[in-house]
């Protein structure tokens, strides 16, 4: 039912878009009609698949790397007081630097290939994942810690059996945010300098006034982003069935 409603909304929006183009007669190099975009999607499918694959690999590797690095950082910060004292300020200040401003540097250092885009996606994901998991690890129910202490548990055992599982819902929120922003990182990286990928394709289509191709690339990117988010969301729900707010979006109507 929810999917059907979303599809109807989408169809109405596309209809309005088509109507605006037909009624105003806006040239197709400014705003192509949805049907023209659909045509471009079909005609340029091999090209879109080729560049889409590049971007998808960048997004997935960036997401994996960012989540892994963020988890390790959060666990280190939570486990060692010294790490917390010395690294927390660095971590916070590092966020004051806009990650986008680093994109040209990353391209300079890591080249025009995939590495700089993966690094970009990793960087943009790293902070939300680290803070989400670290916050979760710090906010363990005090009673559980008391209980563990009376049971004679070691610090490591408490971290592994209580604090980490208890932090997983917070970590899940961080990973959801990461899934949503990972495509941004990859595309920004491609805009700054690349020879492949959907961002590259969009820039070129724009320069050559192939606005229908630009929209087609954008549509593919949108499908990636939505699918990735839905997949990550489903994975988190499946992994944490005990989470009390498993279905927050379920409205009663």
């Amino acid at each position: 039912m929810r999917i059907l409603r979303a599809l109807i909304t989408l169809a109405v929006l596309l209809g309005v878009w088509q109507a605006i183009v037909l009624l105003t007669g806006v040239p197709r190099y400014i705003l192509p009609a949805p049907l023209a975009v659909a045509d471009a999607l079909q005609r340029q499918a091999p090209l879109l698949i080729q560049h889409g694959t590049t971007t998808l690999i960048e997004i997935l590797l960036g997401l994996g790397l960012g989540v892994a690095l963020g988890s390790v950082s959060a666990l280190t910060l939570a486990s060692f007081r010294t790490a917390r004292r010395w690294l927390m300020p660095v971590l916070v200040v590092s966020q004051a630097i806009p990650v986008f401003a680093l994109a040209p540097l990353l391209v300079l250092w890591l080249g025009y290939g995939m590495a700089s885009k993966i690094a970009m996606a990793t960087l943009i994901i790293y902070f939300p994942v680290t803070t989400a998991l670290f916050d979760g690890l710090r906010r363990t129910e005090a009673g559980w810690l008391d209980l563990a202490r009376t049971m004679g548990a070691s610090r490591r055992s408490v971290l592994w059996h209580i604090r980490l599982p208890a932090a997983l819902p917070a970590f899940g929120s961080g990973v959801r945010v990461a899934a949503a922003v990972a495509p941004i990182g990859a595309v920004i990286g491609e805009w700054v300098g690349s020879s492949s990928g959907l961002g590259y394709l969009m820039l070129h289509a724009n320069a050559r006034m192939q606005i229908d191709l630009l929209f087609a690339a954008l549509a593919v990117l949108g499908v990636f982003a939505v699918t990735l988010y839905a997949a990550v969301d489903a994975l988190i729900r499946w992994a944490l069935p005990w989470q009390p707010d498993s279905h927050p979006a379920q409205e009663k109507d």
Partner: protein
Amino acid sequence: MNAPLRPETIHAPLSVTVTGARLTYGGVALFSDLTLHIEAGVTTCLLGPSGVGKTTLLRMVAGLAEPEPPTSILSGDGAPLRGRIAYMAQQDLLLPWLTVLDNVLLGARMRGERRTPALVERARALLERVGLAGREKDRPATLSGGQRQRVAIARTLMEDKPLVLMDEPFSALDALTRLRLQDVAADALAGRTVLMVTHDPLEALRIGHRVHVMTGRPATVGPALEPPGLPPRAVDDPALLALQAELLRRLAG
């Protein structure tokens, strides 16, 4: 109803004596030079109004709060109490991601002990004893408040420690559930050394062999009241009602 379940290891009942206990909060002495004797093999109830410091006293014995000098907590056999207590709090403190059975077996998990078939069998037997046979695989979220506290009792018994410390374990439950659980607890804890903190005179009289009233500022612990008969005592016992009046008078004075 159930066959008595022998503890895995037979402990000689342990007594504990607290002397010179002192607690200051914000420069004000909540109690000082306080003495409490926890007799071996029976349930001692510490009854007092909120904010009198009884929970902190229990936490000192549990090793969860740093005892303020010159507080001295000595066990009857002279050995340290560390690792020889089982703790039960007002909240059930069940871990939502573990099944009921795994929650009962939490102590072994926290200490990294091997999960032997004998251990699992004992956990199952304890669950049956608190009336939760067949719920082993369920998650805590599917249980009612009373059932959750029953699991907590099973977990406390699973620890099989010479000293059981209970901090208002039933105060979050409705009246009828509370009475039922008092029966379960009194039956299950028979023969063990128990210190239970409560603000409910009826609860203290139903399951305590010895009832102390802790009141005043700085607080003092009154002489032990030993209600006749064996716990769990009937709610409508006239002697109990008379004693309840007496306890209420002591609490007020």
